[in-house]
């Protein structure tokens, strides 16, 4: 092959790739988001205010944390249904720890630090259990995480007796809600930092590459010398860790641990990833898509409330969004397969 045709091929594939990206992913999502914003704003001008946007960001952050982990998990070809109840469990675990330390007279800084560690450790532990059930007990991810989802939610109720856990240091609320630049809170800034890291790792590192490889063809990945089980274990632990962080986020925002705070959140996280273009078959997906997916789901929910739709409709709407997103994906897969032949 001559250098000339190579150059030409390179340009052609670059052009084709650009077109494909424009047509398929982020640009379409961005368009959907813009249309939504325009729609909700015309229905209720309050939607397009700094206050509403700050609120959407606050709703977005925990969903985004769960969705980051979910993106990794779904790319490996799995699913993690437990992240919502892990959010609740770790938030409650942190709240109870901080309450008892606070009542025992421990310094505020130390109390908060221990609470943070407890929440993250709880999330990691659930992730570890998920990973072991999947790689050692060979349970399907759907079943393994369904089991921990139920167990986690039950454990949360057992621990709390079903009531809110207040009584932590009062500084928690201040830490969680003080806005800088009229928009960002410290927890939000941390979420952005974590997002940057998970995005970089997924897109540019060997860990990310192996995540795609495991989901794309686990057999080939194993044949290439990749420790597939080890990698899956890490990915589920990452998802658990993110859920623990999300539990902390919610706790810092509300100032108390709510046993029901994680309910339905796994659905929102899966919706965010899937709307963002992550394929449930495994092997493909991007963090940028998940970011937009999470923004779309949270903006829809805020918008619906602002135009007077009862909050109870939320789960219905998220369910619909998942169905539409997966439907669109399947149309895409079909056309891509048709085009790729020959």
């Amino acid at each position, binding site marked *: 092959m001559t250098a000339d045709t190579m150059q030409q091929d390179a340009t052609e594939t670059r052009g084709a790739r650009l077109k494909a990206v424009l047509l398929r992913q982020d640009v379409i999502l961005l368009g959907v988001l813009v249309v939504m914003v325009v729609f909700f704003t015309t229905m209720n001008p309050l939607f397009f205010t700094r206050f509403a946007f700050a609120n959407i960001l606050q709703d977005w952050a925990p969903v985004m944390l769960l969705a980051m982990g979910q993106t990794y998990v779904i790319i490996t070809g799995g699913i993690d249904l437990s992240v919502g109840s892990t959010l609740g469990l770790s938030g409650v675990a942190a709240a109870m720890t901080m309450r008892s330390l606070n009542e025992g007279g421990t310094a505020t800084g130390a109390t908060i630090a221990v609470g943070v560690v407890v929440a993250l450790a709880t999330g990691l532990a659930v992730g570890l259990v998920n990973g072991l059930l999947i790689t050692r007990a060979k349970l399907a991810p759907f079943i393994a995480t369904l089991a921990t989802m139920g167990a986690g939610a039950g454990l949360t109720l057992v621990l709390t007796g079903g009531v809110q856990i207040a009584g932590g240091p009062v500084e928690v609320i201040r830490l969680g809600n003080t806005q800088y630049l009229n928009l960002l809170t410290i927890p939000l800034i941390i979420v952005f930092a974590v997002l940057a890291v998970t995005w970089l790792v997924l897109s540019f590192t060997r860990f990310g*590459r192996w995540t795609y490889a495991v989901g794309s063809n686990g057999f080939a990945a194993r044949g*290439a*010398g990749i420790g597939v089980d080890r990698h899956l274990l890490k990915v589920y632990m990452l998802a658990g860790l993110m859920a623990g962080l999300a539990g902390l986020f919610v706790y810092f925002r509300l100032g108390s641990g709510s046993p029901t705070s994680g309910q339905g959140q796994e659905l929102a996280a899966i919706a965010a990833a899937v709307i963002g273009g992550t394929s449930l078959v495994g092997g493909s997906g991007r963090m940028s898509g998940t970011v937009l997916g999470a923004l779309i789901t949270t903006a829809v929910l805020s918008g619906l409330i602002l135009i007077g739709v009862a909050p109870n409709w939320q789960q219905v709407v998220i369910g619909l969004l998942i169905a539409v997103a997966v439907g669109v994906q399947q149309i895409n897969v079909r056309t891509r397969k048709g085009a790729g*032949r020959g």
Partner: protein
Amino acid sequence: MADAPIYEARGVTKSYGSVQALTDVDLSIRAGEIVGLVGDNGAGKSTLVKVLSGAHQPDSGSVYLDGVARAWKSPHEALEAGIETLYQDSGLCPDLTVSGNVFLGREKLRPGLLGKLGFLDNKAMARVAHEELERAGIGLTGVRRNVNQLSGGQRQAVAIGRAVAWARKVIVLDEPTNHLGARQSGEVLKVVAGARERGLGVVFISHTLPHVLQVTDRIVVLRLGRVVADEPTSSFTPDSLLKVITGLQATGTGPKT
């Protein structure tokens, strides 16, 4: 001795429960030699592949690499020692790029701190992948394309090219031309022949006897777990090879019809 085998199985016996899959099998591969391994279904080809690739341990007998007895504990160990195996249908990761697949499990990292953090050097991998595939005789446009955009024949060529690029001693190819059209098979066979030019030992397992006769230097026939023939390819005709495989004839040099 220049003609000493690079890789060898001696007296390999393997049974699964009451099923005797291999009985006292000898197989030797020299550098720059393509050895065809043929036999009917259930003759023991797959078992022998697994023993050669390190996936299974023989019950008795041993494999020798450069004359040294080796007991592989895992395929990874054999891989590290320079033996690449391309399993039937093991394939590639369709969602990764060609170069991502070529370097799968052996990713090149960036120099310096970024590399320590696990950042990939995609540019270098793409460049080397392109060179290696071209050296293996595979002309592909764009190694940064995803494998799911390639045809079946191109995918198989990449899989073999990958094995050829990494193998230092031997490649074991299990049904590399399965499910491929005539033209695509031709390309794959060219790559296999290229591996010989590079001084690798090649074990070529196939049901497609014309391919075996076309590309191999020597043919080993397995029947019911035993080696029933081990002769230069030139002593077989398509007809005699089939007869040896099915047991109607003892050697390839029988009377020609």
